[in-house]
């Protein structure tokens, strides 16, 4: 059974989400504050985390940032805010996906399933690929830069593997959305923010990327 942690300060929303998720076959726990959520995740790690942005005390962004320090669990933001600013900030903090309230339960579980699918090891592991000083080992689930391991989240790792599989070729944002996130259609900002975060980790100069390059109007490409 998949365990989901719901960090939401509105008691009614939290209760309703827990009921609905349990009804869909998940094991759901709730937390009313970020601190409580972080503690629960440390003690009983869930497979997915849903988090609201407006929380008393630590806000949602900070909650995501702290959880990301030592956990690559897929984090989905469920927020009433829909400004580009908020979405990008949450994704940059380390969230894997962003849903705007109200989310239909069907939609929510579809997203969680997609995140879970790609979270698992891939069926056809390939030997390590090398891009200059960058080494991607799908089997080991590891990325090394100049020999040192680079901490990446599952989503970032999937994104990197997808680009590595098509090395030297362009993948459009829509292609990446469907292959990495499992969305037939979705918000392309998701891709942009994750690419940006990945560059911070694997590029010497993230502003002038050498490996993960943008092709204006077309998409992204990984090269040596």
């Amino acid at each position, binding site marked *: 059974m998949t365990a989901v942690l719901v960090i939401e300060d*509105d008691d*009614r*929303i939290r*209760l*309703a*989400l827990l*009921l*609905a998720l349990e*009804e*869909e076959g998940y094991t759901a726990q709730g937390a009313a504050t970020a601190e409580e959520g972080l503690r629960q995740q440390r003690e009983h790690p869930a497979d997915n985390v849903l988090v609201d942005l407006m929380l008393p005390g630590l806000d949602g962004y900070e909650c995501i940032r702290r959880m990301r320090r030592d956990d690559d669990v897929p984090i989905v933001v*469920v927020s*009433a*805010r*829909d400004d580009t600013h908020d979405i990008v900030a949450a994704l940059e903090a380390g969230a894997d996906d962003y849903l*705007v*309230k*109200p*989310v*239909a*339960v*069907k939609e929510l579980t579809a997203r969680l399933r997609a995140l879970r699918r790609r979270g698992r090891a891939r069926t056809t592991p390939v030997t390590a690929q090398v891009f200059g000083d960058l080494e991607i080992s799908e089997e080991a689930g590891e990325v090394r830069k100049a020999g040192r391991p680079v901490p990446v989240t599952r989503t970032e790792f999937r994104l990197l593997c997808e680009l590595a599989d098509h090395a030297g070729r362009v993948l459009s944002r829509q292609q990446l959305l469907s292959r990495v996130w499992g969305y*037939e*259609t979705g918000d*392309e900002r998701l891709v942009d923010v994750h690419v940006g975060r990945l560059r911070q980790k694997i590029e010497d100069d993230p502003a002038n990327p050498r490996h993960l390059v943008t092709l204006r*109007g*077309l998409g992204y490409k990984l090269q040596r």
Partner: protein
Amino acid sequence: MTRLGLRARVTAAFAVGALLLAASMALFSYDLTRRSLLEERERTAVRVAYFDAAVVRSGLDTDEPDVVEVLRSLDTGSSRRPLLQINESFHARAAEVVGDDPVPEALRRMVRRGEPAVQRVRLNGQPTLVVGVPISATISYYELTSLREVEDTFQVVALTLTAVAIMVAGSGAALGWYATRHSVRPLTAVADAAERIAAGDVTTRLDPTTDPDLTRLSSSFNHMVDQLARRIERDRRFAADVSHELRSPLQTLAAAASVLNRRREHQDERTATAAGLVADEVARFQRLVDDLIELARTEQPAQRQRVDVAALAREACRARDLPESLVRLAPGTPTGWQVDRRRVEQILRNLLDNAVRYGGGPVAVRLSGAGSGVGVVQVDDAGPGVPAADREVIFDRFVRGRAAHARAGTDGTGLGLALVAEHAAAHGGRARVDDRPGGGASFHVELPGSLS
């Protein structure tokens, strides 16, 4: 009667003013010239007449004077004619024909009394100056001086002055036209700005620094537009805020309704029906809030990028269990369009939903170019069509087709086509509906600048 425009009136006033001024100046100058010329002429004529009279007097001062010879001895030139009255008979130089009564009676009486006199008369249609000089009790000397040359001069002067007056009036009109062009220019700027604002651009402002005299106009105009923009923004924000506030309770409802829906088989029939109603209405409520928030967001400009619109259309069909073969790309139309992906996605989605709800299902989704970079998305259905009277209003908010009122159980939000129109407008285009040949409605959305 239509009132003349400001410019025409000011110009006319300038012209009339200039004409009055020029005419009175001309009349005054004419009168002055005429008077001084005539006086000069009269003085000369009188002096000459005295001189001639003296010559005649000395010529007659013989025993048997030859009157004609005496008169002939005068050096008169062509413009003067001497006339001598002895007793009641007039004597002139032989060849000259003396008119019936060249010298007015009053003048004659004065001269006879011994007083020299001058009078202007018309003689045979010619302006003439008659100078009378008494020579003795019975003899009077008259001299008739033609004023024709002077009159000719007057005519030339009058003509010139009239021409000048007309020219001045014309210049006045031109000046008026020119001056009003400058004074009307700020009004033209105001009119242009007002038109832009009416077209929806509330960022339009007048430049308050162009003319110190017009600062008040431009600042109060700008103030008005500020107020208007603030009001529009406030209304927009209110709609957005309300929608946002509805999101949190809706999340609870959506999750709770899904639980009820899941448990249907454990409920008795009445409870299950009620639970189904709640779930359906929550879903509709959710769509309504999404559409409202989307509408509040449509003010933002379209974010264009290369989008495979055909793939988008096929995806939209697939999501509605419609055959992908409905999508037809006109020959020669590129698949990659420069459009706002999210907006075009909604256009397709809403038009397809509309066709399913009110048009008996779509029969074709056509993608084509209409020249000069305009991409056209067209969705045809085989429904009852849209009456001509409803074809504008159908794109307004919360308007649903007449057929929809007749049909029960509609789950539309009434915002779908309004959003289509807004998304088209964000691309600089428009949405419209026509009859489809063969029955049904045909919705067209024009997206300028999408095919480059």
